[in-house]
């Protein structure tokens, strides 16, 4: 990944082809950021403008507006070009408000915690 000349830029691994495009950035902690790439370097450090975080819980999703973000390259897993014609998620998914997604997130976390604690209590049964 480097600053390639104009003739081979479309064949290089440089992020230059993604400049000023709407991108989906997947981070190592599983977060999904949507925004416009304004700058980058050889470490995949990136500047995203108009960034939103997309939260998905089951069939619900919500975009939380964040603003201008500088992402440290080591946290980047994948940078995907978002196809503007089919930007949307599968049709069965519903867009909800920030408050609703937070509630859904909490419910999911509590369900997971409960499952964990149930398993812990059943451990003496030594199931495998």
């Amino acid at each position, binding site marked *: *990944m480097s600053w390639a000349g104009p003739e081979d830029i479309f064949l290089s*691994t440089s992020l230059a082809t993604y400049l000023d495009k709407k991108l989906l950035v997947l981070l*190592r902690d599983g977060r999904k950021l949507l925004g416009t790439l304004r700058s980058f370097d050889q470490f995949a450090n990136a500047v995203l403008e108009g960034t939103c975080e997309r939260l998905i819980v089951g069939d619900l999703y919500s975009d939380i507006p964040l603003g201008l973000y500088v992402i440290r390259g080591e946290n980047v897993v*994948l940078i*995907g*070009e978002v196809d503007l014609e089919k930007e949307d998620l599968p049709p069965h*998914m519903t867009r909800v408000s920030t408050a609703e997604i937070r509630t859904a997130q909490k419910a999911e976390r509590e369900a997971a915690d409960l499952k964990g604690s149930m398993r812990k209590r059943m451990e003496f049964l030594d199931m495998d």
Partner: protein
Amino acid sequence: MLFFSYFKEIVGREVVVELKNDLAIRGTLRSVDQYLNIKLENTRVVDQDKYPHMMSVRNCFIRGSVVRYVQLPPDGVDIELLHDATRREARGG
């Protein structure tokens, strides 16, 4: 440098890149660099239902440091050639 050279040889072929977070992506290898960062085209996530947010992504850049495996086309490796190149590189080029 050997694997970099090797990946350059298979540009244009279809591969499956499995990441350290278990996400597996099938796509056409568009380019690769010295860090083994990879660019894929016409990507499809192997387990679509689990990763709905990837539906709208057709081209992507994958940071080399997060790659676990690259599954190659079955006829994509010339073992003899790779063997020779390995020895040549081990001798110091």
